[in-house]
């Protein structure tokens, strides 16, 4: 149904990409400035360490460590790039989750909770069914679906509260997030899933590889040796394409978008707006749940179960991933990779300098801040010449004319 003139699409697309690029660059600059200020104001850090930090912010993905003389070295780092793809997998999924909800006019800030519930369900299934009796591949599939289902249920709850009781979905999502955090801790506290073998670690769950369950590598480990990359990234990309098809080519996508753009008009047309709101949140929740499944079923990732005081950043970072991609499912693939690149940058900063990974969170938050009005700025560009085309001004005489002109010029 998306049938815009090619040059409009071009302009619209270019503008979106441009706006996102600007957000990214400003975000990184703010991070750099912060590093510079800390470096200069702190005698133990100094200018040269700040310079190292700033270079890592922009090029951390290609950092290969420090040479014997202590200088930063650069080059193709298969571990970093492979890990970037691995970490991008859940980010793409939570990004899709937030984007789908956005298209339906909902702000899914509940991705962390859905992610946690997906984690719990996946791990319980993956570790709970003995691989001696059931094929590991089947367990993997069941765990994957279980994660999706748990996320869907957790997403549907705020969806129902929104649809039937008109409770602000943001607030409901926040509450379900914290409920999930406590619930997950409660479930694992005292359970048999706790990793007691490696007793140096407390409050961790067994890796799924313990039960011989792991996502197949699909040969990606040959391309990026010494990294965690696996087939999950391919599943994520396929799902992104499926979401794209769902939103743009199907009647369901049409209904979801109609509800998102104008809930009243959708209702007027006989579309069941409440059902669609719940459905949209359930789909979003499932995508977040899958994010967790793909991450924790990789075989060698560990889950810290005593999580009642903190929420997973992967969930929240779905927001910038979706915003930067202007909620375009295909765009999410790239912005997800960008976000995970920042993750790698944070690691490199912690390993190689006196700075820490939280600087990347600052960069991310600046990007979110900028995208709050990059949308608006783009809208202003698009709507130039159609000012006043709002209901508040239909009172006046001008709008009808204004709009007429706008229509012709657009």
């Amino acid at each position: 149904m998306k049938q815009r003139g090619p040059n409009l699409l071009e302009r619209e697309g270019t503008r979106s990409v441009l706006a996102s690029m600007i957000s990214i660059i400003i975000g990184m600059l703010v991070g750099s400035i912060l590093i510079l200020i800390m470096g200069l104001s702190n005698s133990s850090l100094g200018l040269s360490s700040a310079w190292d930090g700033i270079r890592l912010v922009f090029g951390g993905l290609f950092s290969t460590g420090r040479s014997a003389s202590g200088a930063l070295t650069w080059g193709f780092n298969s571990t970093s790039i492979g890990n970037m793809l691995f970490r991008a997998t859940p980010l793409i999924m939570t990004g899709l989750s937030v984007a789908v909800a956005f298209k339906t006019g909902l702000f899914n800030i509940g991705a962390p909770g859905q992610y946690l519930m997906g984690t719990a369900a996946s791990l319980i299934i993956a570790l709970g069914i003995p691989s001696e009796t059931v094929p590991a591949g089947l367990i993997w599939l069941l765990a994957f679906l279980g994660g999706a289902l748990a996320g869907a249920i957790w997403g549907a709850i705020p969806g129902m509260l929104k649809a039937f009781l008109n409770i602000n979905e943001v607030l409901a999502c926040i509450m379900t997030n914290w409920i999930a955090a406590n619930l997950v801790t409660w479930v694992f506290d005292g359970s048999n899933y706790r990793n007691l073998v490696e007793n140096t670690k407390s409050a961790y769950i067994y890796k799924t590889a313990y039960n011989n369950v792991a996502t197949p590598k699909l040969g990606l480990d040959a391309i990026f040796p010494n990294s965690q990359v696996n087939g999950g990234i391919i599943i994520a990309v396929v799902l992104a394409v499926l979401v794209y098809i769902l939103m743009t080519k199907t009647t369901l996508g049409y209904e979801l978008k109609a509800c998102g753009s104008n809930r009243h008009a959708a209702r007027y047309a006989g579309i069941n707006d409440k059902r669609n709101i719940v459905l949209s949140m359930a789909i979003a929740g499932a995508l977040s749940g899958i994010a967790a499944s793909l991450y924790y079923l990789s075989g060698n990732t560990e889950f810290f179960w005593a999580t009642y005081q903190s929420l997973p950043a992967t969930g929240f970072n779905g927001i910038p991933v979706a915003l930067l991609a202007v909620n375009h499912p295909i765009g999410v693939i790239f912005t997800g990779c960008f976000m995970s690149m920042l993750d790698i940058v944070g690691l490199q900063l912690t390993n190689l300098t006196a700075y820490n990974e939280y600087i990347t969170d600052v960069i991310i938050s600046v990007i979110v801040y900028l995208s709050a009005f990059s949308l608006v700025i783009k809208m202003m560009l698009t709507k130039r010449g159609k000012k006043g085309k709002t209901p508040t001004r239909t009172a006046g005489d001008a709008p009808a004319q204004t709009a007429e002109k706008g229509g012709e010029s657009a």
Partner: protein
Amino acid sequence: MTFLIQQTLIYAIPLMIVALAGVYAERSGIINLALEGIMIFGAFVGVLFVNLTQQAGTFDAAKAAGDWVALQGFELLAMLVAAIMGAIFSLLLSFASVNLKADQTIGGTALNLMAPALVLFLIRIIANQNTLQMYTGDAASWFMIKKSLFGYGRNDEMGFLGSTFIDKVYLATYVCILLFVILSIILYKTRFGLRLRSCGENPQAADSLGINVYKMRYIGTTISGALAGMGGFVYALTTANCASTGDVAGFGFLALAVMIFGNWKPLNIAGASLLFGLFKCVAAAYSSIDINGDGVFLLAQIGISPHFYRMLPYLITLIVLAFTSKKSRAPKAEGIPYDKGQR
């Protein structure tokens, strides 16, 4: 009972003042989803101020001499600093919402992401760990008002009222209550309050009467930021032994829920905060609550998982919202950017 009331107040008062922060922003037409972030920021700034002042030794003499009045002044100063920095931090939200007509929800979310990131980044560099604490001593020894200050001995009885409201309390609690009352009166009885409320209901009408909607929204959000910043520090002071960890555990969002539950009205909010304070208190201290003073810790003995109690405030919030949402009445124009060109 004394313990229960004191613990409840410790949670209820920051909740109340931060909910009022929400009211000031929303009544002017700006949804301040960033309360959580501003609290985190305010808590950090306040604690940092205490830490640095202690390092500088400014109040060492007062501390040594037992000059508790000076120490209370120190506490108030830290609250003020947290309020000012909270107000400045909130300018990011006003700027985005008022000048750039940004999506207020996303803008607020950005601040909520920014505050913990920034705070943790700085704490790591300053303290080389994930928590910033007082430089020396603890909150109780520096700031808490105790009966000994009034000449009572260790074993002297102060009576129920005295031991509940004078012994082992923080001045911050009473300052917050006073501020809450004053700001509530301002909202309803003054020209400023009337105009502020008009901007949240119908900015077009306010504008046509010569009221500067942009200015009012800036002021509303800035007051909101100051209160939330201060509330954040008070929270850190009274519940976390004056330490900052880049986290207030969803307290800012609970305040938003209290505000909605209280229907954007101060009196209802005060009541709602006490209720939520009680739940929060139960969640935090269920194992040491001795309801009727007979040495039986009932809640701990029922055998319900502690995780359940921790979950309770959030669960109750959802349930309460579910029951009150139909009746709640938000300021009509909240969340809608006001555009002078489109009136």
